[in-house]
C-alpha cells in the first residue's frame, strides 16, 4: 500500500512538473511569436530559450512518467523512498543548473547538444562545464531511481516472470501484471539510454579536459546523442502507457486488464525496436553505413506494430460498446492514445528514408514530436496527476468543466500542431529564430501556432491550479 511519504513525494513531483510545464509553454509561445515577427528577440535569446524549453519538456515528462510508475508500483512491490527522493533532489538541482546555464550563461546548443557544438564556446565560459555537470547529475539521479525500481521488481519477480515469458504457455502459475511487464521493459530501456548518456558525458569530459589532444569522432557522438535522446523521449511515452494499462479499466470501473501471450510478445519485441529506432535520426548522414539506415527504417516501422495491435487495440476493446464510467482521467487517457496514434503517422512518414530527404530538419519534425507530447504523453501524465490528486481530496472537476478543458486542449493542440505540419510540407526549416523572406507562409503559421498554443495553455493553467491545490492539501493536510 502507498505510504504517506510516497503520497507526499508524488505530490511534490506533480507540482514541480506542472510549474515547469507552464513556464516552458510560455517560453514556447514566445519563440513562436518571435518567429512570427510579433516579438523581436535577439537570436541568442531565442536559441537559449529553445534550448531550455526542449531540455525542460523532455526532463519533466520523463520524471512525470517515472513518478507515475513509482507510485503505482507500490501496489505490487515495495519501492524505495530514498531513491525517489534522491532523484527528486538531483532533478531539481540539475534543472536549476540548466536554467542558469541557458538563461544566464546563454548556452544555446539546442536540447540535442550535438557534438561538437557544446565545445565551441560562444557563450559564458563556465556554461559548457556546468552544462556537462548538470546533465551528469540528472543522469545519476535517474539511474539510481531506475535501477532501484528494477531491483524492487526483481525482488518479487524473476527475470522471466518480469518479462512475462511464462505467459507464452497456457495457464501460467505466476501471473505478471501488465503494469509490471511494461514497467520492466521500459526501465530496461531507460537504464540503457541513461548508460549511453554516461558514455557520452565521459567522452565529452575527456575531450574537454584534454585541451585538444583528444578529439571525438563526430559520427560516433551523433549516434550516442540520438541513442540517448530519442530513446529517453520514446520511453517517457511508454512510462505513460504503463500507467494506462494499470488505471484505464479501474477508472472506468471495469475489470482489470490481464497479461496475455500477445501482450507479452508485443512488449518484449518493443524493447528491441525501441533500442534500434534511434538510427532514423542519421538518415541524412551519408557517412552512416547503409545497413544501419535500413535497420533504422525497419525498426521505426516495426515499433508501430505492437503499439497498434496490442495497446491501441486493447484500448478499443476496453471502450467499444462498453458503458464506461467516463471521467476526466480516462478521457485524458483516451484522447492521449488518439494523439499518440496521429503523432505516430507523422513519425512513420518521416522515418521513411525517401521522405526524410525532403522532411529532415523541416517543421515536420517538431510537428510529429509535439503531437506525441502535447496530445499524447502529456495527456497520459495529466490523467495520472488528476487521478492521483482526487484520491485523497474531494471535489472533482465537474463534467461540464471537464468538457471545456478537453475541448480547449484538443482545439489548441490541433491548431498549434497543424501549423507545424503545414510548415513542414512547405519546407520551412525548423530551429530558425527568424524566417527568410521567401517563406511567405512561415510567419503567419508561427503566429497561428502561438495563438493556438495560448488556447492550449488555458486548460493547462486550470489543471495546474486545480491539481496543484489538491497536491498541496496532500502535502499540508492540516491547512
Amino acid at each position, binding site marked *: 500500500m502507498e505510504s504517506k511519504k510516497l503520497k507526499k513525494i508524488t505530490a511534490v513531483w506533480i507540482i514541480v512538473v506542472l510549474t515547469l510545464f507552464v513556464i516552458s509553454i510560455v517560453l514556447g509561445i514566445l519563440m513562436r511569436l518571435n518567429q512570427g515577427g510579433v516579438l523581436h528577440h535577439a*537570436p*541568442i535569446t531565442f*536559441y537559449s530559450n529553445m534550448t531550455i524549453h526542449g531540455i525542460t519538456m523532455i526532463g519533466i515528462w520523463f520524471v512525470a512518467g517515472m513518478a507515475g510508475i513509482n507510485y503505482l508500483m507500490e501496489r505490487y512491490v515495495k519501492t524505495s523512498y530514498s531513491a525517489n527522493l534522491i532523484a527528486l533532489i538531483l532533478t531539481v538541482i540539475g534543472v536549476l543548473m540548466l536554467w542558469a546555464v541557458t538563461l544566464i550563461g546563454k548556452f*544555446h546548443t*539546442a536540447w540535442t547538444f*550535438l*557534438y*561538437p*557544438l557544446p565545445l*565551441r564556446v*560562444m557563450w559564458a565560459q563556465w556554461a559548457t562545464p556546468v552544462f556537462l555537470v548538470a546533465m551528469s547529475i540528472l543522469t545519476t539521479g535517474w539511474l539510481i531511481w531506475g535501477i532501484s525500481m528494477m531491483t524492487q521488481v526483481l525482488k518479487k519477480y524473476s527475470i522471466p516472470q518480469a518479462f512475462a515469458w511464462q505467459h507464452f504457455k497456457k495457464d501460467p502459475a505466476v501471473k505478471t501484471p501488465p503494469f509490471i511487464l511494461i514497467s520492466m521493459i521500459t526501465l530496461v530501456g531507460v537504464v540503457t539510454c541513461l548508460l549511453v548518456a554516461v558514455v557520452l558525458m565521459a567522452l565529452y569530459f575527456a575531450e574537454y579536459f584534454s585541451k585538444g589532444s583528444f578529439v571525438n569522432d*563526430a*559520427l560516433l557522438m551523433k549516434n550516442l546523442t540520438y541513442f540517448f535522446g530519442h530513446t529517453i523521449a520514446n520511453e517517457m511515452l511508454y512510462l505513460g502507457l504503463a500507467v494506462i494499462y494499470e488505471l484505464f479499466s479501474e477508472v472506468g470501473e471495469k475489470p482489470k486488464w490481464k497479461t496475455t501471450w500477445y501482450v507479452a510478445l508485443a512488449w518484449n519485441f518493443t524493447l528491441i525496436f525501441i533500442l534500434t529506432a534511434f538510427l532514423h535520426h542519421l538518415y*541524412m*548522414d*551519408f*557517412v552512416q553505413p*547503409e545497413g544501419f539506415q*535500413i535497420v533504422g*527504417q525497419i525498426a521505426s*516501422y516495426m515499433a508501430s*506494430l505492437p503499439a*497498434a*495491435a*496490442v495497446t491501441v*487495440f486493447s484500448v*478499443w*476493446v476496453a*471502450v*467499444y*460498446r*462498453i*458503458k*464506461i464510467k*467516463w471521467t476526466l482521467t480516462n478521457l485524458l487517457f*483516451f484522447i492521449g492514445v488518439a494523439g499518440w*496514434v*496521429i503523432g505516430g*503517422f*507523422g513519425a*512513420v*512518414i518521416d522515418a*521513411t528514408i*525517401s*521522405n526524410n*530527404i525532403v522532411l529532415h*530538419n*523541416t517543421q515536420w519534425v517538431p510537428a510529429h514530436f509535439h503531437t506525441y507530447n502535447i496530445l499524447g504523453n502529456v495527456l497520459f501524465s495529466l490523467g495520472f496527476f488528476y487521478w492521483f490528486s482526487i484520491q485523497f481530496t474531494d471535489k472533482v472537476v465537474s463534467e461540464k468543466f471537464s468538457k471545456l478543458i478537453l475541448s480547449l486542449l484538443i482545439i489548441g493542440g490541433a491548431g498549434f500542431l497543424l501549423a507545424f*505540419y*503545414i510548415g513542414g*510540407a*512547405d*519546407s520551412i*526549416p*525548423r*530551429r*530558425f529564430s*527568424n524566417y*527568410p523572406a*521567401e517563406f511567405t507562409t512561415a510567419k503567419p503559421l508561427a503566429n497561428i501556432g502561438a495563438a493556438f498554443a495560448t488556447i492550449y495553455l488555458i486548460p493547462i493553467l486550470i489543471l495546474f491550479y486545480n491539481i496543484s491545490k489538491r497536491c498541496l492539501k496532500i502535502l499540508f493536510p492540516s491547512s
Partner: protein
Amino acid sequence: MQQSSILLLFFFLMGIALIVFTYIYLSSKKADQGMSNPLKKRFWFFLILTIIMGIFASVTIPKSPYFAFADKTPAKVIHVAAIQFAFFLSEKAIDREKPSGQQIELPVNEVIEFRVTSFDVNHGFAIYDESNRLITQTQAMPGYVNRLRYKFEEPGKYNVLCLEYCGVAHQLMRTSFVVK
C-alpha cells in the same frame, strides 16, 4: 510534388484515426456488449497493418538516396565546405586554412556531385528550388565528406540553406547557385 502527397497522406490517416476513435467513444454510450471476437479482430488488424507497412517498406527503401546516380559519371564535382556561418562552394577543393568559394553555374540535366563537409560543427546542406521547395539535402559533418548526387531538370536559381542547427546565426547561413 512529394511534400503535397505526404501532407495529403497524413491528413487522410489522421482523418481515419479521428473517425475510428470518435466512433468507438460514441459506441461506449450505447449497449453494454463489448466487441465480439476481439482476438480474431485483433489478429486481422495486426495482419493488415503488417502487410501495409511491409508494402511501404519494400517500395520506399529502394528509393533511398544514398546510391542515386551511382553508376553515372558526374559532369561536375562541387566542393562544399560549411562553417559557422557560411557556405563555401567551389569547383576546386577548399583550403581549410584559407577557405574561398566562387559563383557556381551548373549544367541542366546533368548529374552533379556535391562533396560536402564541415570545418567546425555539424551543418546541413539543403537545396531549395525556385518555388522554395526542399528538393534534396545531406549533412555536413566535420571530419567526413558526404557525396550527394543530383540531376537538376529545371534551370534557375537554387538556394542552399543550413538545416542542421549550428548556433546563433544558423538562420542566416545560406548560399545559392545557378543551373543553366
